[in-house]
C-alpha cells in the first residue's frame, strides 16, 4: 500500500479497465499526449483541469468506444491540432527542426575532414644544428 503511494508520480485518477492490456495502452497514451495548457508536460503528468479532462477522454475513447491507439491520436489531433502530439509532422514550418540534426552531422563531418586535411599537409621540419643551439639558449636547457 505504502509503496504504491510512493511510486505514484503525478496526479492519480481512478479508472476501471477491462483488461491489463487496456490499462497499459491507456498509460502509454497519456504519456504520449502533450497538455495544451501547460506547454511542456504530458497529460499524464499535469494537474491542470484540461489534462484531467483529456485523460478522462482517452479513457472513454479506449474503454467505451473501443478505439485503436491511432484513432485516439487522430481524435485528439483533430480537436487540439498537432500540438498535442509530441511528434510534429513534417511541414513548411517544421522542416528546420527535422533537418537540423542532418545539418549538424554534415557540418561536423566537414569540420573533421578539414582538420584532418590540414594536419596531413603539415610536415615536420628538421632543425639545423645552429637552430637547435638557439632554441636551447631561449628555452634554457639544463
Amino acid at each position, binding site marked *: 500500500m505504502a509503496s504504491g503511494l510512493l511510486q505514484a508520480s503525478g496526479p492519480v485518477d481512478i479508472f476501471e479497465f477491462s483488461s491489463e492490456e487496456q490499462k497499459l495502452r491507456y498509460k502509454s497514451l497519456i504519456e504520449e499526449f502533450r497538455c495544451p*495548457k501547460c506547454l511542456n508536460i504530458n497529460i499524464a503528468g499535469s494537474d491542470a483541469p*484540461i489534462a484531467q*479532462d483529456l485523460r478522462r477522454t482517452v479513457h472513454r475513447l479506449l474503454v467505451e468506444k473501443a478505439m485503436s491507439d491511432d484513432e485516439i491520436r487522430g481524435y485528439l489531433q483533430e*480537436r487540439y*491540432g498537432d*500540438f498535442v502530439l509530441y511528434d510534429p509532422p513534417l511541414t513548411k514550418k517544421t522542416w528546420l527542426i527535422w533537418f537540423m540534426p542532418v545539418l549538424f552531422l554534415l557540418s561536423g563531418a566537414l569540420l573533421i575532414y578539414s582538420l584532418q586535411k590540414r594536419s596531413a599537409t603539415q610536415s615536420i621540419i628538421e632543425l639545423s644544428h645552429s637552430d637547435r643551439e638557439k632554441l636551447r639558449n631561449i628555452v634554457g636547457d639544463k
Partner: protein
Amino acid sequence: MTARFLIPFFVFVVIVCFSFFGLGLKDRDKLPSALIGKPFPDFESKSLFDPVEVIVRDDLVGRPTLVNVWATWCPTCKAEHAELVKIAETTDLQMIGINYKDDRLKAIDWLAQHGNPFDKILEDPEGDLGIELGVYGAPETFILDRGGSIVYKRVGAITNRVWENQMRSVTRGL
C-alpha cells in the same frame, strides 16, 4: 586564415535571426486552432436557464454566430464580459454562451449581476463539449458562418482592440 575570425560573427548572425523570428512570434503560448474551416461539432446540451430545454447544433446554424466559452471561476471571462455585452448590442450576431465546467446557480446569478449578452446559453458541466471544440482554457470564442462552419477562434479575452482589429472584419463577410 582571416575567415576564421568571422566564424563567431556568423554564429552571432544565426542566433540573431532565430531570436528575431522566435521571440517575435505573437502569442507563443496560444495554439493555432485545428478547427478553423471545419463545421461546429454536433452536440446536445441542456439550456442553462431551463434544464428541460435541450439545445442542439441545428439551433445554432442559419445565422452568423458568436460562441463564447465562459465560466464564473474564470477572471478573464469577467474582464471581457462588458465587451460581449457591447457586441450583442451593436451587431446582428447570434450570441451563444457555453457555460464551461461551472456551477449552474452561480452562473445564473453572475449573469443577473453583470448582464446577459447571450441569446442562448448551454451548459457544459463536465467539459465534454469543450473537448469537442478543442477548448483548453476559458474564455475562448468562436465565430461561425451561416452554415455553422468555424471561421475564427480566439483564446483569451476579447478586448475592444481585439474586436475592432481582428474580429469585426471577420463578422462582416458572413
